[in-house]
C-alpha cells in the first residue's frame, strides 16, 4: 500500500467519509472530525508512519491537504 493510500485510509476510517470527499475536507467539516476525532486521527497517523508530530503541527493540521504538507516535514511523501 502506498503512503497516499495509507493516508487516505486513515481519513476514511477516522471520519467515515468517502474518498471523493477527501481533497476538500477540512477540520469540523463533518461531525466526526471534531477534537476527539482529530486526536484519534493524529494517533493513527503517528503509528502508521512511525513519526511523532510536534504540537504546533497537530494544531496546524486543519485539513486533508494541509496534512500532506505537514507530513512532508517528517519525510513522508504522499
Amino acid at each position: 500500500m502506498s503512503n497516499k493510500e495509507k493516508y487516505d485510509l486513515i481519513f476514511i476510517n477516522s471520519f467515515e467519509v468517502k474518498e471523493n470527499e477527501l481533497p476538500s475536507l477540512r477540520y469540523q467539516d463533518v461531525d466526526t472530525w471534531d477534537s476527539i476525532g482529530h486526536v484519534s486521527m493524529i494517533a493513527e497517523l503517528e503509528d502508521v508512519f512511525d513519526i511523532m508530530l510536534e504540537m504546533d503541527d497537530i494544531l496546524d493540521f486543519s485539513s486533508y491537504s494541509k496534512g500532506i504538507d505537514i507530513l512532508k516535514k517528517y519525510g513522508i511523501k504522499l
Partner: protein
Amino acid sequence: MVSSSRLLSGKTAVITGCNRGIGKAILDNYATNGATIFACVRKEEKEFSNHIRILSEKNAVNIIPIYFDARNKEEMKQGVKKIKDSKKQIDILVNNSGIGHNAHFMMSSLESLKEVFDVNFIAPFLFTQYIAKIMVRQKFGNIINISSTAALDASEGKSIYGASKAALICITKIMASELKAFGIRANSIAPGLTDTDMLSFLPKEFIVNSREQKEIIQPSEIADTALFLASDASAQITGQVIRVEGGK
C-alpha cells in the same frame, strides 16, 4: 502488599522516577503483581540496574529501563520512541517524577518556581500527551499522577511545590474528562508526609507545622494505592484524588 495474587498480570506499566522513594516502591509493587514495566529514570546507575535485574528475575517479569531527563524534551521524545518501538500495549502510566521545594512564599524565587514547575507539572503534562496517544489508539489506558497533600492543604512553606502539585491534580481531572471518550481514566494520589529522601530535606519547622498527620507514611503504602488504581478493581474510578496520609 494488598494481595499475594498478581493483579497486574498481562499489563504493561510506564513509571517515571522509579529509582527511589515512592516510585521505587511502585516499581517493586507492580513487578510483584506481574506487570511488564518501562522504568523511566534520569540516568543509568549500577545500583538501579542491579535492582531491576533482581526484581525481574524474582518475579519473572520484564523490566525495561528508559533513560531521560524529564526537563529535556528531546531526551523525553527519544524515551517515548523506545517505548513506542516496543509495540507493547501500554495499560498504565504512573507520573511519579518530582522534586521538592520548601520556602516561605516571600522567599520563593522565579528560578525555583520555573524549575519545580518544569519537573512537577510540565514534564508529566508532555509525557502524558505522548503516552496517551498510544492509549488513544488502544482505546484504553490508565493514568496515575502522584501529587501531594500539599496541593490540597495550602501548607506553609509549600507555595511553589504545592502549586505545582495542585496544577497536576487539575490536569488529572481534565484528562479524566477529555480522555474518557477513549476509554482512558486518570486519577491522582496525594501522599502526606512520606518516608523518602525528599522528607529528609524538609526543615523540621515545616514537618511540625505542616498538618496534624499522626505518622509518617511509608512509600509501600502509597504503592498499594497505586496498585489499586492500576488494577481493574478501580475500573469505575476516574478523575479522583486519593489522600494517603493516615488521617488527622
